[in-house]
């Protein structure tokens, strides 16, 4: 018999382990979020885009355009840093779709879906864990900016509020990329389409320059671009003079994104064979 060939016998069911009640929706989401955090710890390269990239952007843009745009690099830094903070975190949310696309192709999602847990828990867990990446991005941006001479006029509470607003926005936006991650065929396709959407969102905005010199058609877009609203809100918060309108519009934008894309994403996830 096959047993005789074993060096050590494999014994499995000493006792029956009864199945407890399934975990709550929150508990399942947090457990799956914990999985993503473990993966970040295991593969720290995943954090490159939220650590080195913002450093390069800040240094490059400030010294490249600072003099030309604002007359001095210190003045430009004051203007551009909240913008780059927003850009970095918004770009980081793109990764959600790519990682979801690679992840979902593997057998482990079959296992998750064969468990009696709240269905969207795997999605929500991944999205929540990405919050850690956003926090890293925000801390790096602010740290580099401060080291280079960025001084927010607002209080610490204002700055924290500004960062929180960015995090909420990135979380809301990541539902779009999660949706793309589920419906597109390959991770490469997700990246391509997402980047295509990302350029008009981040560059055609008030992140790098004041839109007043732009042609009318572009200004029309920049003014309605949700990223511009967010950047205006973040700038105003960091300056200690919150622009209630921009903050309000940003939050409405977040709510709209989640309201539209969360159900779409969950539906796509349920259907994914």
């Amino acid at each position, binding site marked *: 018999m096959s047993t005789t060939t*074993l060096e050590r016998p*494999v014994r*499995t*069911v000493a006792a029956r382990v009864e199945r407890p009640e399934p975990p709550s929706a929150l508990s399942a989401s947090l457990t799956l979020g914990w999985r993503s955090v473990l993966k970040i710890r295991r593969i720290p390269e995943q954090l490159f885009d939220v650590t080195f990239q913002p450093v390069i952007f800040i240094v490059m843009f400030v010294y490249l355009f600072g003099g030309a745009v604002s007359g001095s690099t210190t003045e430009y830094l004051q203007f551009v840093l909240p913008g780059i903070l927003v850009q970095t975190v918004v770009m980081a949310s793109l990764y959600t779709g790519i990682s979801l696309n690679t992840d979902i192709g593997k057998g482990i999602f079959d296992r998750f879906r064969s468990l009696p847990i709240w269905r969207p828990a795997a999605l929500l867990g991944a999205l929540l864990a990405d919050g850690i990446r956003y926090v890293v991005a925000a801390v790096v941006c602010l740290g580099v900016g401060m080291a280079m001479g960025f001084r927010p006029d607002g209080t610490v509470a204002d700055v924290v509020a500004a960062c929180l607003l960015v995090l909420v926005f990135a979380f809301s936006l990541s539902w779009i990329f999660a949706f793309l991650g589920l419906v597109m065929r390959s991770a490469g396709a997700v990246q391509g389409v997402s980047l295509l959407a990302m350029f008009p969102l981040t560059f055609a905005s008030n992140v790098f320059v004041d839109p007043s010199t732009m042609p009318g058609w572009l200004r029309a877009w920049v003014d309605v671009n949700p990223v511009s609203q967010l950047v205006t809100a973040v700038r105003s918060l960091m300056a200690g003079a919150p622009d209630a309108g921009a903050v309000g519009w940003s939050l409405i934008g977040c709510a709209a994104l989640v309201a539209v894309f969360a159900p779409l994403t969950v539906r796509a996830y349920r259907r994914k*064979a």
Partner: protein
Amino acid sequence: MTTLAIEAHGLVKTFGENRAVDGVDLAVRAGTVYGVLGPNGAGKTTTVRMLTTLLRPDGGSARVLGHDVVDDADQVRRLIGLTGQYASVDEDLTGTENLVLQSRLVGLSRSQSKRRAAELLENFDLTEAANRPVKHFSGGMRRRIDLAASIVVTPDVLFLDEPTTGLDPRSRGQVWDIVRDLVAGGTTVLLTTQYLDEADQLADRIAVIDRGTVIAEGTSADLKASVGRSSLHLRLADETQRDLAERLVAQTLDTTPHRTPEAGVITAPVADPDVVADLMIRLRAEGVGIDEIGVQRPSLDEVFLTLTGHAADDDTERSAA
């Protein structure tokens, strides 16, 4: 007992033009091992995915322990365990982390999860790999951690999709032991396999599936009996005498011999083993030299060949069809 753990009626799943599963009926008694045997692309995995609520059937219905897999999917998920064909653990996570994750997701507490993970690693001979990422595991270890993840709580019905494909004989034996242990503990197991000896070894009943339909069902003995009581294996000393030998076999045994891919080997169903003696005398009289001759119960390979008209691993013909 006539309690059915799994029952399927006319399950259908189509992918575009391809009817991957085309009216599968299954009835699996509780506490038994049921083997679903078929070549690649026969519809085994698709059937399992429907039974485990991962895929919605396009037609027919299925119940697991009385719960409908579509209408009562959540209840089904509370009763089953699944080990998919492809590693269904997280390759970046360690053995311990995977099992803790799985334990937490079925609802065990943090401390219970840690205890259960350690216990399973110990039982499955994986303790030394506990803190290594699964991607560095060998094929056999991967399969074992996969199985362990499926039984962090004892499932009432366990689905194993090709649990030993690609494993060396020793690892295969270990997986078989695990399955036997689980059944002894009261779990019903449905396993798919392309290995005929695996179905023979483990399964109480077997469904042979080909091109999306069940073409035969029964115990291993039933299936073998359907091909004839026993079969003749004849290896010729000189393979150029094959035509002559085949004619003699056909005349003496009154059956059609099978040509096997192996040169100089003839097999044929035998109704009465006594007649084989007559055959040997005639072979001697005609000057046909024998290298090896035997009468044995037919193997499942032969069953498959007889039922489907093609060999179990005959993929080229299938993909062309």
